[in-house]
């Protein structure tokens, strides 16, 4: 009797597990489809924006964005908000924006600026932590009597595309433990590393993935995308 009960229980358990697996597979399918759909939509949007930007390249939008940024900077510098000084600020910002409206936003890959800014803000704490680690590493090396360093030069190819993401990656490499960017020659980063170990750390490409994620480049899976999928799941659950 007990045996039959046990078998029944085991059967039930298996069925539940099976069910759960089917459901999970279904959910995962939905999620993949959703992400690919959203990615497609995002790409469509980016292409639309790109087309629009090409139509009005070096046109009024760039000029206006530059002007607003410069005016904010002026207000920060001046700190005098009476009419006279504000009008001076408007005139100066207009002059500088006219002279350099195609400098500030030249060949930036046009994505959703808001998303880039948001992701960049989330990138900064991680970068700060890395910088502090880097500085303790340098302090340890500088203060240790034996100075255990073994410098070497490594090169790697990058999959990033736009110049601004190259700059972000290069400066991040310079600021993180034991590595400085020496040169970029047709997509090859030449990096001077203090140690064999930090060179290996760089080769894992975590930082590159993070930078690629910020500027919405390349198409591979990032850690953040997994988080996005979990957000989609939550939305689905609420919808059910």
């Amino acid at each position, binding site marked *: 009797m007990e045996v039959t009960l046990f078998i029944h229980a085991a059967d039930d358990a298996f069925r539940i597990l099976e069910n759960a697996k089917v459901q999970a597979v279904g959910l995962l399918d939905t999620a993949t489809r959703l992400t690919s759909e959203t990615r497609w939509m995002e790409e469509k949007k980016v292409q639309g924006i790109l087309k629009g930007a090409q139509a009005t390249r070096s046109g009024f939008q760039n000029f206006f964005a530059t002007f607003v940024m*410069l005016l904010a900077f002026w207000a920060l510098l001046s700190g005098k908000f009476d009419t006279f*000084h504000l009008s001076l600020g408007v005139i100066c910002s207009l002059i*500088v924006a006219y002279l*350099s409206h195609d400098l500030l936003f030249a060949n930036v890959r046009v994505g959703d600026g808001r998303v880039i800014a948001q992701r960049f803000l989330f990138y900064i704490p991680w970068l700060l932590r890395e910088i502090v680690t880097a500085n303790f590493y340098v302090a340890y090396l500088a203060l240790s009597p034996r100075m255990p360093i073994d410098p070497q030069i490594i090169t790697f190819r990058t999959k990033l595309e736009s110049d601004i993401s190259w700059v972000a990656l290069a400066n991040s490499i310079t600021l993180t433990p034991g590595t400085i960017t020496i040169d*970029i020659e047709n997509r090859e980063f030449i990096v001077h590393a203090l140690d064999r170990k930090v060179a290996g750390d760089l080769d894992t490409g975590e930082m590159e993935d993070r930078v690629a994620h910020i500027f919405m480049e390349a198409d591979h899976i990032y850690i953040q995308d997994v988080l996005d999928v979990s957000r989609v799941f939550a939305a689905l659950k609420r919808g059910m």
Partner: protein
Amino acid sequence: MIASSDDIIIKTIARIFVPFIQLYALYVIMHGHYSPGGGFQGGVILGASMALLLITHGYDEVKRRFPENVVLLMGSVGVLIYAGIGLTCLLLGGNYLDYGQLSVILHVEPAHARSLGILGVELGVGFTVMAIMYSIFFDISTGGILPGDDKLNGELEDNG
């Protein structure tokens, strides 16, 4: 003759910084009577921003953006503003650069007129200093011969 730098990092960073540096230079010029600085310092910063653009983006780009004759004209206009304000004060019966006299034609009280006069003079000095800095930097970097001057180049070659 300065070619464009082939380093993408320096180019991009300079591209992002230059508008802000220029605005900062204009701020230094305009606020010369509250904070340190004034025409000369602001002009130097403005010239430095152009030097940054020149060493990163090369001669052709800068020449397209700020043609040399326009910049030199700006320098002359700066001197004209300076001398004009000074002479106006002289004509209105004061000393040279006695800004208080400007209240008669600006229809404001003398203190405000003094402030406006100083602003104008700072502006003139700033433009002049910027133009001269820029021109000196251009001449040094090109050896005094601009690529457009084919005739001059030919003459120099003829003379050995």
